[in-house]
């Protein structure tokens, strides 16, 4: 799959059904409030970029969506299902939501192909043959089919992250969460991972990306969300967000990361 035309963010998704809804979500670590009444929603097909200073709660917020963190107040709905403590509900939601981590988190003792095949086989009950075919399909999409038989440690960081994206896609999620997917990469490897994400966006995936790659945000995002101290401070289209930020804190943040 080649990158032909640049991806044009679409604003025609306004009418699409809600994929993720967070209503008044709060969370505390002891006395420290990490999330403060977060209202946040993502429509099907939308691409949201979340940014903000370190410690502002970005990771915590997206990790609440697939219950890697438990929120204490408010409601989270994923594809209309209310997230509760119920194991089957959590399981259902996790099958719909893929996640990509800063540090890749590939299984180091399994080959790339085995990494991709494990969950579809054991969670979805897909046959080995079909799971492998599907995995090879996604590995081709992220352009590392030739690495399928290697172990994660034998790949570059960029290749590992693309493998992690493929592993996640193998579960056929309809929402993808990215938590600073390029922050752990050497600068020259960032582009290949971002290209993969742009393609994914172009194919219509619903995406929530925590990233400070503002070029990516401009290119792909339908909305950019700025967080600070556990709150969503500003949420706007990339044009408005970068061209005419409303909040003082947003302007400060932008001036810092855009130099």
């Amino acid at each position, binding site marked *: 799959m080649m990158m032909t035309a640049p991806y044009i963010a679409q604003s025609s998704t306004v009418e699409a059904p809600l994929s993720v809804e967070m209503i008044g979500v709060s969370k505390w670590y002891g006395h420290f409030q990490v999330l403060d009444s977060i209202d946040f929603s993502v429509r099907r097909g939308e691409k949201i970029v979340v940014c903000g200073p370190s410690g502002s709660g970005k990771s915590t917020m997206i*990790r609440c969506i*697939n*219950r*890697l963190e438990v929120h204490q107040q408010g409601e989270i709905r994923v594809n209309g299902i209310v997230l509760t403590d119920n194991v089957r509900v*959590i*399981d259902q939601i*996790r*099958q719909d*939501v*893929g*996640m990509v*981590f800063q*540090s890749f*988190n*590939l*299984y*180091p*003792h*399994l*080959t790339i192909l085995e990494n991709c095949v*494990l*969950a579809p086989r*054991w*969670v979805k009950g897909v046959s080995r043959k079909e799971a492998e075919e599907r995995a090879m399909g996604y590995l081709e999409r992220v352009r590392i089919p030739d690495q399928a038989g290697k*172990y*994660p*440690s*034998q*790949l570059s960081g960029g290749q590992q992250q693309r493998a*992690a994206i493929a*592993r*996640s896609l193998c*579960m056929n999620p309809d929402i993808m969460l990215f938590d600073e997917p390029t922050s752990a990469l050497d600068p020259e490897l960032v582009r290949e991972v971002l290209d993969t994400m742009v393609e994914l966006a172009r194919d219509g995936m619903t995406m929530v990306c925590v990233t400070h790659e503002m070029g990516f945000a401009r290119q792909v995002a339908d909305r950019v969300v700025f967080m600070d101290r556990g709150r969503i401070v500003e949420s706007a289209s990339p044009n408005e967000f970068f061209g005419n930020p409303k909040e003082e804190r947003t302007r400060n943040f932008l001036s810092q990361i855009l130099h």
Partner: protein
Amino acid sequence: MDWVYIYKALPDLMNGLGMTLLISGVAICLSLLLGVIGAALRTSGIRPLEMLVTGYVEFIRGTPYLVQIFFIFYGLPSIGLKLSIFWSGALALTIWASAFHIESFRAGLAAVGQGIRDASASLSLKRWQHAWFIVLPLALRAALPSAMNTIVATVKNSSYLQAIGLVELTFVAVDRIAYEFRTVEMFASICVIYLFCVFILSGLGHWLEHRLNRPFAGR
């Protein structure tokens, strides 16, 4: 050194070695199993279980091995549990080795990071699937070097069991010395035999380590 004497003693020594290997083998298998189970309990998050396992480990590591053997061999019958010499010995060896394996595997489990757990959760792997496919292989790899030490020590420590009359390698040597007084010949012989066993075992361990570490070798 009387080589002919050693040569003539060889059949006896080999019988002793057979018993040493048998009881060590039994104890190694059982203690590895108990080690994995114990480490799992110790990190289960269930406080009473964790404390129980910790207490067990501390008790075994804090008391002399010979005392443990006597406790099992002479102590257990007086509370109505009469075991043969072989099973008393196997039990003592297993109980001792398990404590050390629990420690190794606990460290191995700790080597599996939060990131890997997050990955499994996000892929909605069940707890047992994560434990079986991910945690166990990773923890075993991480624990292998120190578990190998314990395995080697299990073979060497089986020698203590001569004190309760188990006819293993050391017993055979000591027994012959008692009436034929060839001290140097006998002790030299069994040292060489123990060394040989340890050598084979360590070699096996290194080979396994090397094999299992292939995925981590990097580019």
